[in-house]
Protein backbone atom coordinates (compact mmCIF):
# COMPACT_ATOMS: atom_id res chain seq x y z
CA UNK A 1 0.00 0.00 0.00
CA UNK A 2 1.44 3.40 -0.93
CA UNK A 3 2.16 6.02 1.72
CA UNK A 4 -0.71 8.15 0.40
CA UNK A 5 -3.18 5.27 0.66
CA UNK A 6 -2.03 4.45 4.21
CA UNK A 7 -2.35 8.07 5.29
CA UNK A 8 -5.68 8.57 3.51
CA UNK A 9 -7.15 5.52 5.21
CA UNK A 10 -6.10 6.87 8.59
CA UNK A 11 -7.48 10.33 7.82
CA UNK A 12 -10.82 8.97 6.61
CA UNK A 13 -11.08 6.88 9.76
CA UNK A 14 -10.32 9.90 11.95
CA UNK A 15 -12.68 12.16 9.98
CA UNK A 16 -15.67 9.84 9.94
CA UNK A 17 -15.36 8.80 13.59
CA UNK A 18 -15.47 12.40 14.79
CA UNK A 19 -18.87 13.47 16.17
CA UNK A 20 -18.17 17.07 15.08
CA UNK A 21 -18.39 16.00 11.43
CA UNK A 22 -21.84 14.47 11.89
CA UNK A 23 -23.19 17.35 13.97
CA UNK A 24 -22.07 19.92 11.40
CA UNK A 25 -23.33 17.84 8.48
CA UNK A 26 -26.72 17.57 10.20
CA UNK A 27 -26.83 21.35 10.77
CA UNK A 28 -25.86 21.93 7.14
CA UNK A 29 -28.60 19.68 5.76
CA UNK A 30 -31.27 20.93 8.18
CA UNK A 31 -30.68 24.56 7.28
CA UNK A 32 -30.65 23.70 3.58
CA UNK A 33 -33.85 21.67 3.85
CA UNK A 34 -35.58 24.58 5.55
CA UNK A 35 -34.39 27.07 2.91
CA UNK A 36 -35.29 24.75 0.04
CA UNK A 37 -38.85 24.25 1.30
CA UNK A 38 -39.30 27.93 1.99
CA UNK A 39 -37.95 29.19 -1.36
CA UNK A 40 -39.81 26.54 -3.34
CA UNK A 41 -43.16 27.47 -1.79
CA UNK A 42 -42.47 31.21 -1.93
CA UNK A 43 -41.07 31.49 -5.48
CA UNK A 44 -42.65 28.43 -7.09
CA UNK A 45 -39.72 28.31 -9.53
CA UNK A 46 -37.75 25.18 -10.26
CA UNK A 47 -34.17 26.32 -9.74
CA UNK A 48 -31.52 25.91 -7.07
CA UNK A 49 -29.90 29.34 -7.20
CA UNK A 50 -30.96 30.21 -3.65
CA UNK A 51 -29.83 26.82 -2.40
CA UNK A 52 -26.43 27.18 -4.05
CA UNK A 53 -25.93 30.60 -2.49
CA UNK A 54 -26.99 29.23 0.87
CA UNK A 55 -24.52 26.35 0.49
CA UNK A 56 -21.84 28.88 -0.43
CA UNK A 57 -22.38 30.81 2.81
CA UNK A 58 -22.83 27.73 5.00
CA UNK A 59 -19.62 26.25 3.59
CA UNK A 60 -17.69 29.40 4.48
CA UNK A 61 -19.02 29.13 8.03
CA UNK A 62 -18.77 25.37 8.54
CA UNK A 63 -15.73 24.13 6.59
CA UNK A 64 -13.24 26.07 8.79
CA UNK A 65 -14.75 24.28 11.81
CA UNK A 66 -14.58 20.91 10.05
CA UNK A 67 -10.95 21.43 9.05
CA UNK A 68 -9.62 23.11 12.20
CA UNK A 69 -8.61 19.79 13.75
CA UNK A 70 -6.58 18.40 10.88
CA UNK A 71 -3.10 19.62 11.76
CA UNK A 72 -3.85 21.59 14.94
CA UNK A 73 -5.00 18.46 16.76
CA UNK A 74 -1.97 16.46 15.55
CA UNK A 75 0.27 19.25 16.82
CA UNK A 76 -1.50 19.46 20.18
CA UNK A 77 -1.41 15.69 20.70
CA UNK A 78 2.22 15.48 19.51
CA UNK A 79 1.25 12.90 16.86
CA UNK A 80 2.54 15.29 14.19
CA UNK A 81 6.01 14.34 15.42
CA UNK A 82 5.24 10.70 14.57
CA UNK A 83 4.01 11.60 11.09
CA UNK A 84 6.85 13.96 10.24
CA UNK A 85 9.55 11.54 11.38
CA UNK A 86 8.08 8.66 9.35
CA UNK A 87 9.66 7.99 5.95
CA UNK A 88 6.94 9.79 4.00
CA UNK A 89 7.00 13.10 2.18
CA UNK A 90 5.14 16.03 3.69
CA UNK A 91 3.16 16.43 0.47
CA UNK A 92 1.53 13.00 0.98
CA UNK A 93 0.52 13.95 4.51
CA UNK A 94 -1.05 17.17 3.21
CA UNK A 95 -2.77 15.44 0.29
CA UNK A 96 -4.22 12.71 2.51
CA UNK A 97 -5.74 15.28 4.84
CA UNK A 98 -7.01 17.30 1.87
CA UNK A 99 -8.69 14.29 0.27
CA UNK A 100 -10.27 13.22 3.57
CA UNK A 101 -11.58 16.78 4.06
CA UNK A 102 -12.95 16.75 0.51
CA UNK A 103 -14.68 13.43 1.14
CA UNK A 104 -16.46 14.88 4.15
CA UNK A 105 -17.48 18.15 2.49
CA UNK A 106 -18.55 16.46 -0.74
CA UNK A 107 -20.50 13.95 1.34
CA UNK A 108 -22.44 16.87 2.82
CA UNK A 109 -23.01 18.33 -0.63
CA UNK A 110 -24.21 14.94 -1.88
CA UNK A 111 -27.05 15.15 0.64
CA UNK A 112 -28.22 18.27 -1.16
CA UNK A 113 -28.53 16.38 -4.47
CA UNK A 114 -31.91 15.33 -3.17
CA UNK A 115 -33.20 18.83 -3.95
CA UNK A 116 -32.25 18.50 -7.60
CA UNK A 117 -34.00 15.13 -7.70
CA UNK A 118 -37.15 16.63 -6.16
CA UNK A 119 -37.14 19.46 -8.70
CA UNK A 120 -36.66 16.95 -11.52
CA UNK A 121 -39.56 14.81 -10.30
CA UNK A 122 -42.08 17.56 -9.68
CA UNK A 123 -41.00 20.33 -12.05
CA UNK A 124 -39.17 21.06 -15.24
CA UNK A 125 -35.95 22.70 -14.17
CA UNK A 126 -33.17 23.81 -16.51
CA UNK A 127 -30.50 21.31 -15.51
CA UNK A 128 -27.62 23.33 -17.06
CA UNK A 129 -27.34 25.82 -14.18
CA UNK A 130 -27.89 22.98 -11.70
CA UNK A 131 -24.91 21.05 -13.07
CA UNK A 132 -22.73 24.17 -13.25
CA UNK A 133 -23.91 25.18 -9.75
CA UNK A 134 -22.78 21.85 -8.35
CA UNK A 135 -19.46 22.28 -10.16
CA UNK A 136 -19.11 25.70 -8.49
CA UNK A 137 -19.84 24.15 -5.12
CA UNK A 138 -17.29 21.38 -5.59
CA UNK A 139 -14.63 23.95 -6.49
CA UNK A 140 -15.67 26.26 -3.65
CA UNK A 141 -15.60 23.39 -1.13
CA UNK A 142 -12.17 22.28 -2.36
CA UNK A 143 -10.77 25.77 -1.92
CA UNK A 144 -12.20 26.10 1.59
CA UNK A 145 -10.81 22.70 2.61
CA UNK A 146 -7.36 23.74 1.33
CA UNK A 147 -7.51 27.06 3.22
CA UNK A 148 -8.67 25.25 6.38
CA UNK A 149 -5.77 22.83 6.09
CA UNK A 150 -3.32 25.67 5.60
CA UNK A 151 -4.43 27.60 8.68
CA UNK A 152 -4.57 24.40 10.73
CA UNK A 153 -0.91 23.76 9.91
CA UNK A 154 0.05 27.09 11.46
CA UNK A 155 -1.18 26.55 15.00
CA UNK A 156 -2.03 23.96 17.64
CA UNK A 157 -5.08 25.98 18.68
CA UNK A 158 -8.14 24.77 16.79
CA UNK A 159 -10.14 27.93 17.45
CA UNK A 160 -7.34 30.10 16.08
CA UNK A 161 -7.17 27.85 13.03
CA UNK A 162 -10.93 28.14 12.39
CA UNK A 163 -10.89 31.91 12.94
CA UNK A 164 -7.98 32.39 10.52
CA UNK A 165 -9.63 30.22 7.92
CA UNK A 166 -12.94 32.04 8.27
CA UNK A 167 -11.13 35.38 8.07
CA UNK A 168 -9.36 34.46 4.82
CA UNK A 169 -12.60 33.18 3.27
CA UNK A 170 -14.48 36.36 4.26
CA UNK A 171 -11.69 38.56 2.91
CA UNK A 172 -11.85 36.69 -0.39
CA UNK A 173 -15.63 36.93 -0.43
CA UNK A 174 -15.61 40.68 0.04
CA UNK A 175 -12.42 41.41 -1.92
CA UNK A 176 -14.30 43.23 -4.67
CA UNK A 177 -16.24 45.44 -2.26
CA UNK A 178 -13.15 47.62 -1.69
CA UNK A 179 -12.12 47.69 -5.35
CA UNK A 180 -13.63 51.12 -6.02
CA UNK A 181 -11.37 52.60 -3.32
CA UNK A 182 -8.18 51.28 -4.88
CA UNK A 183 -6.10 52.84 -7.69
CA UNK A 184 -5.48 50.92 -10.91
CA UNK A 185 -4.33 48.19 -11.34
CA UNK A 186 -5.11 47.13 -7.74
CA UNK A 187 -8.83 47.63 -8.29
CA UNK A 188 -8.77 44.97 -11.02
CA UNK A 189 -6.77 42.64 -8.80
CA UNK A 190 -9.30 43.08 -5.98
CA UNK A 191 -12.21 42.35 -8.32
CA UNK A 192 -10.49 39.27 -9.68
CA UNK A 193 -9.73 37.98 -6.19
CA UNK A 194 -13.39 37.97 -5.28
CA UNK A 195 -14.74 34.57 -4.28
CA UNK A 196 -18.35 35.42 -5.01
CA UNK A 197 -17.34 37.01 -8.32
CA UNK A 198 -16.09 33.62 -9.54
CA UNK A 199 -18.87 31.61 -7.91
CA UNK A 200 -21.92 33.55 -9.11
CA UNK A 201 -21.51 33.07 -12.90
CA UNK A 202 -21.30 29.28 -12.54
CA UNK A 203 -24.39 29.14 -10.36
CA UNK A 204 -26.35 30.95 -13.07
CA UNK A 205 -25.11 28.59 -15.76
CA UNK A 206 -22.04 30.41 -17.16
CA UNK A 207 -18.90 28.29 -16.90
CA UNK A 208 -15.64 30.13 -17.62
CA UNK A 209 -12.20 28.56 -17.51
CA UNK A 210 -11.01 31.66 -15.61
CA UNK A 211 -13.47 30.91 -12.78
CA UNK A 212 -12.42 27.27 -12.57
CA UNK A 213 -8.77 28.37 -12.72
CA UNK A 214 -9.32 30.78 -9.83
CA UNK A 215 -10.54 28.04 -7.47
CA UNK A 216 -7.97 25.47 -8.58
CA UNK A 217 -5.05 27.92 -8.42
CA UNK A 218 -5.91 29.24 -4.96
CA UNK A 219 -6.48 25.73 -3.61
CA UNK A 220 -3.14 24.56 -5.01
CA UNK A 221 -1.42 27.61 -3.56
CA UNK A 222 -2.89 26.86 -0.12
CA UNK A 223 -1.80 23.21 -0.34
CA UNK A 224 1.67 24.22 -1.50
CA UNK A 225 2.05 26.65 1.42
CA UNK A 226 0.83 23.99 3.86
CA UNK A 227 3.43 21.57 2.58
CA UNK A 228 6.16 24.24 2.72
CA UNK A 229 5.28 25.24 6.28
CA UNK A 230 5.37 21.63 7.38
CA UNK A 231 8.80 21.20 5.80
CA UNK A 232 10.16 24.36 7.47
CA UNK A 233 11.01 23.13 10.93
Amino acid at each position, binding site marked *: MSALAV*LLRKELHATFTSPIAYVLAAVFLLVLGYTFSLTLFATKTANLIYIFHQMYVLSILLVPVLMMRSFAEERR*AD*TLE*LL*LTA*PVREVWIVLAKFLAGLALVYGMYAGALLYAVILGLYGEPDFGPIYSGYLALLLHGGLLVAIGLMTSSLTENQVVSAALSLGIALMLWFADSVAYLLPAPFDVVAVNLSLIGHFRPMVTGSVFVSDIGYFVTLAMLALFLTSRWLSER
Partner: protein
Amino acid sequence: MSGSSDSNAADVTPAVVARDLVKRYGPVTALSDVSLDIARGEVFGLLGPNGSGKTTFIRMLAGYLAPTRGQLLVCGLDVVRDALPARRRLGYVPEAAPLYGHMRVGEFLEFMGRLRGLAAADLGAAVERVVARLALGDVLRKSTRALSRGYRQRVAIAQALIHDPEIVVLDEPTNGLDPRQIIEVRELVRSLAGHHTVVMSSHILTEVGKTADRVAILLGGRLLGVRAVADTPDLEDWFLSLT
Protein backbone atom coordinates in the same frame (compact mmCIF):
# COMPACT_ATOMS: atom_id res chain seq x y z
CA MET B 1 15.77 -3.30 8.00
CA SER B 2 18.23 -4.04 10.77
CA GLY B 3 21.99 -3.74 10.58
CA SER B 4 22.41 -7.39 9.64
CA SER B 5 21.01 -6.70 6.18
CA ASP B 6 23.77 -4.23 5.35
CA SER B 7 27.07 -4.90 3.74
CA ASN B 8 30.16 -5.32 5.93
CA ALA B 9 31.43 -1.96 4.74
CA ALA B 10 28.28 -0.25 5.95
CA ASP B 11 28.46 -2.06 9.30
CA VAL B 12 31.72 -0.37 10.28
CA THR B 13 30.19 3.07 9.70
CA PRO B 14 29.11 4.60 13.02
CA ALA B 15 25.37 4.51 13.59
CA VAL B 16 25.34 8.26 14.19
CA VAL B 17 27.87 10.93 13.30
CA ALA B 18 27.33 14.56 14.33
CA ARG B 19 29.77 17.22 13.15
CA ASP B 20 29.66 20.83 14.36
CA LEU B 21 25.92 20.57 14.77
CA VAL B 22 24.14 23.84 15.47
CA LYS B 23 20.43 24.54 15.98
CA ARG B 24 19.10 28.04 16.41
CA TYR B 25 15.54 29.18 17.02
CA GLY B 26 15.71 32.83 16.01
CA PRO B 27 18.21 34.45 18.37
CA VAL B 28 18.29 31.45 20.75
CA THR B 29 20.97 28.82 20.21
CA ALA B 30 19.57 25.48 21.38
CA LEU B 31 22.56 23.41 20.30
CA SER B 32 26.05 24.71 19.68
CA ASP B 33 28.81 22.93 17.70
CA VAL B 34 28.05 19.42 18.89
CA SER B 35 30.30 16.72 17.44
CA LEU B 36 30.05 13.07 18.46
CA ASP B 37 30.03 9.52 17.09
CA ILE B 38 27.73 6.73 18.25
CA ALA B 39 28.86 3.18 17.52
CA ARG B 40 26.56 0.49 16.20
CA GLY B 41 24.88 -1.62 18.84
CA GLU B 42 25.63 0.61 21.80
CA VAL B 43 23.20 2.32 24.17
CA PHE B 44 24.11 5.98 24.13
CA GLY B 45 22.70 8.30 26.77
CA LEU B 46 22.29 12.06 26.50
CA LEU B 47 22.29 13.53 29.96
CA GLY B 48 21.55 17.10 30.99
CA PRO B 49 19.07 19.32 32.77
CA ASN B 50 15.90 20.56 31.09
CA GLY B 51 16.72 23.02 28.31
CA SER B 52 20.21 21.61 27.78
CA GLY B 53 19.55 20.67 24.14
CA LYS B 54 18.88 16.92 24.53
CA THR B 55 15.47 16.96 22.90
CA THR B 56 16.72 19.26 20.13
CA PHE B 57 19.49 16.76 19.32
CA ILE B 58 17.06 13.84 19.48
CA ARG B 59 14.54 15.63 17.23
CA MET B 60 17.21 16.46 14.66
CA LEU B 61 18.34 12.84 14.71
CA ALA B 62 14.75 11.68 14.17
CA GLY B 63 14.34 14.12 11.27
CA TYR B 64 11.74 16.30 12.97
CA LEU B 65 14.03 19.34 13.09
CA ALA B 66 16.61 20.37 10.53
CA PRO B 67 20.05 21.51 11.72
CA THR B 68 20.82 25.19 11.24
CA ARG B 69 24.43 24.24 10.49
CA GLY B 70 26.66 21.19 10.62
CA GLN B 71 26.12 17.61 9.58
CA LEU B 72 24.22 14.73 11.09
CA LEU B 73 24.57 11.27 9.57
CA VAL B 74 22.47 8.20 10.34
CA CYS B 75 24.20 5.01 9.13
CA GLY B 76 26.13 7.24 6.71
CA LEU B 77 22.98 8.98 5.44
CA ASP B 78 22.55 12.73 5.84
CA VAL B 79 19.34 13.44 7.80
CA VAL B 80 18.55 16.42 5.54
CA ARG B 81 19.76 15.33 2.10
CA ASP B 82 18.80 11.66 2.43
CA ALA B 83 15.89 12.30 4.78
CA LEU B 84 13.61 9.41 3.80
CA PRO B 85 16.25 6.63 3.67
CA ALA B 86 17.69 7.94 6.96
CA ARG B 87 14.24 7.88 8.61
CA ARG B 88 13.73 4.28 7.47
CA ARG B 89 16.73 3.30 9.62
CA LEU B 90 15.19 4.88 12.71
CA GLY B 91 12.48 4.14 15.20
CA TYR B 92 11.54 7.16 17.29
CA VAL B 93 9.66 7.53 20.56
CA PRO B 94 8.88 11.19 21.35
CA GLU B 95 8.83 12.31 24.98
CA ALA B 96 5.03 12.49 25.20
CA ALA B 97 4.62 8.94 23.81
CA PRO B 98 1.93 10.19 21.39
CA LEU B 99 -0.68 7.73 20.08
CA TYR B 100 -3.74 8.19 17.87
CA GLY B 101 -6.74 8.28 20.18
CA HIS B 102 -9.22 7.03 17.58
CA MET B 103 -7.31 3.79 17.05
CA ARG B 104 -7.06 0.54 18.97
CA VAL B 105 -3.56 -0.59 19.91
CA GLY B 106 -3.44 -3.21 17.14
CA GLU B 107 -4.67 -0.74 14.53
CA PHE B 108 -2.12 1.82 15.65
CA LEU B 109 0.76 -0.65 15.35
CA GLU B 110 -0.43 -1.76 11.91
CA PHE B 111 -0.75 1.87 10.80
CA MET B 112 2.77 2.71 11.96
CA GLY B 113 4.10 -0.45 10.31
CA ARG B 114 2.49 0.45 6.98
CA LEU B 115 3.69 4.03 7.30
CA ARG B 116 7.23 2.77 7.77
CA GLY B 117 6.93 0.77 4.56
CA LEU B 118 6.31 -2.76 5.84
CA ALA B 119 4.73 -5.00 3.20
CA ALA B 120 1.27 -6.38 3.94
CA ALA B 121 2.69 -9.90 4.05
CA ASP B 122 5.17 -8.95 6.80
CA LEU B 123 2.87 -6.75 8.83
CA GLY B 124 1.10 -9.44 10.87
CA ALA B 125 4.36 -11.06 11.92
CA ALA B 126 5.89 -7.67 12.78
CA VAL B 127 2.92 -6.76 14.99
CA GLU B 128 3.03 -10.16 16.69
CA ARG B 129 6.76 -9.75 17.33
CA VAL B 130 6.47 -6.34 19.03
CA VAL B 131 3.30 -7.32 20.90
CA ALA B 132 5.14 -10.31 22.35
CA ARG B 133 8.26 -8.31 23.11
CA LEU B 134 6.40 -5.48 24.86
CA ALA B 135 3.78 -7.76 26.45
CA LEU B 136 0.87 -5.92 24.83
CA GLY B 137 -1.36 -8.94 24.25
CA ASP B 138 -3.86 -7.88 26.93
CA VAL B 139 -4.42 -4.42 25.46
CA LEU B 140 -4.22 -5.18 21.74
CA ARG B 141 -7.95 -4.53 21.20
CA LYS B 142 -8.18 -1.64 23.63
CA SER B 143 -8.50 1.96 22.48
CA THR B 144 -5.21 3.80 22.92
CA ARG B 145 -7.19 6.41 24.88
CA ALA B 146 -7.91 3.87 27.61
CA LEU B 147 -4.27 2.96 28.27
CA SER B 148 -2.34 3.70 31.44
CA ARG B 149 0.86 5.77 31.18
CA GLY B 150 2.97 2.63 31.38
CA TYR B 151 1.11 0.91 28.55
CA ARG B 152 1.16 4.09 26.46
CA GLN B 153 4.93 4.12 26.74
CA ARG B 154 5.13 0.44 25.81
CA VAL B 155 2.92 0.95 22.75
CA ALA B 156 5.01 3.97 21.75
CA ILE B 157 8.16 1.86 21.97
CA ALA B 158 6.45 -0.97 20.07
CA GLN B 159 5.67 1.36 17.14
CA ALA B 160 9.31 2.41 17.07
CA LEU B 161 10.43 -1.24 16.83
CA ILE B 162 7.79 -2.43 14.36
CA HIS B 163 10.05 -2.14 11.30
CA ASP B 164 13.08 -3.54 13.15
CA PRO B 165 15.13 -0.35 12.73
CA GLU B 166 18.87 -0.13 13.12
CA ILE B 167 18.62 2.81 15.49
CA VAL B 168 16.05 3.37 18.22
CA VAL B 169 15.74 6.93 19.49
CA LEU B 170 14.02 7.48 22.84
CA ASP B 171 13.33 10.91 24.28
CA GLU B 172 13.04 10.72 28.09
CA PRO B 173 11.60 7.19 27.97
CA THR B 174 11.04 6.87 31.72
CA ASN B 175 9.29 10.20 32.21
CA GLY B 176 6.10 9.89 34.25
CA LEU B 177 6.48 6.15 34.87
CA ASP B 178 6.22 4.47 38.26
CA PRO B 179 9.28 2.63 39.68
CA ARG B 180 8.24 -0.77 38.34
CA GLN B 181 7.59 0.62 34.87
CA ILE B 182 10.96 2.41 34.96
CA ILE B 183 12.70 -0.89 35.68
CA GLU B 184 10.77 -2.56 32.82
CA VAL B 185 11.73 0.17 30.33
CA ARG B 186 15.35 0.04 31.52
CA GLU B 187 15.47 -3.74 30.99
CA LEU B 188 13.85 -3.36 27.59
CA VAL B 189 16.39 -0.75 26.49
CA ARG B 190 19.25 -2.96 27.65
CA SER B 191 17.76 -5.88 25.74
CA LEU B 192 17.78 -3.82 22.54
CA ALA B 193 21.55 -3.25 22.70
CA GLY B 194 23.58 -5.20 20.19
CA HIS B 195 20.84 -5.75 17.64
CA HIS B 196 19.85 -2.08 17.69
CA THR B 197 21.72 1.10 18.45
CA VAL B 198 19.84 3.00 21.13
CA VAL B 199 20.07 6.75 21.60
CA MET B 200 18.18 7.95 24.66
CA SER B 201 17.92 11.19 26.55
CA SER B 202 17.25 11.69 30.22
CA HIS B 203 17.68 14.29 32.89
CA ILE B 204 17.98 11.57 35.54
CA LEU B 205 21.61 10.70 36.14
CA THR B 206 21.06 7.28 37.72
CA GLU B 207 18.75 6.30 34.86
CA VAL B 208 21.37 6.92 32.22
CA GLY B 209 24.06 5.37 34.40
CA LYS B 210 22.10 2.12 34.70
CA THR B 211 21.08 1.91 31.05
CA ALA B 212 23.70 3.42 28.77
CA ASP B 213 27.08 2.13 27.61
CA ARG B 214 28.31 5.67 27.02
CA VAL B 215 27.05 9.00 28.27
CA ALA B 216 27.25 12.50 26.80
CA ILE B 217 26.64 15.49 29.03
CA LEU B 218 24.93 18.52 27.53
CA LEU B 219 24.49 21.88 29.18
CA GLY B 220 23.20 25.07 27.63
CA GLY B 221 23.34 23.47 24.18
CA ARG B 222 27.03 22.56 24.50
CA LEU B 223 28.52 19.09 24.66
CA LEU B 224 30.66 19.01 27.80
CA GLY B 225 31.99 15.47 27.55
CA VAL B 226 31.44 11.88 26.48
CA ARG B 227 32.48 8.86 28.55
CA ALA B 228 31.97 5.13 28.81
CA VAL B 229 29.90 4.32 31.89
CA ALA B 230 32.20 1.38 32.66
CA ASP B 231 35.19 3.77 32.85
CA THR B 232 33.38 6.20 35.12
CA PRO B 233 33.11 4.80 38.63
CA ASP B 234 31.24 7.85 39.90
CA LEU B 235 29.01 9.36 37.25
CA GLU B 236 27.72 11.93 39.71
CA ASP B 237 31.20 13.27 40.48
CA TRP B 238 32.00 13.49 36.79
CA PHE B 239 28.74 15.28 36.07
CA LEU B 240 29.32 17.78 38.90
CA SER B 241 32.92 18.39 37.82
CA LEU B 242 31.73 19.32 34.32
CA THR B 243 28.70 21.36 35.25
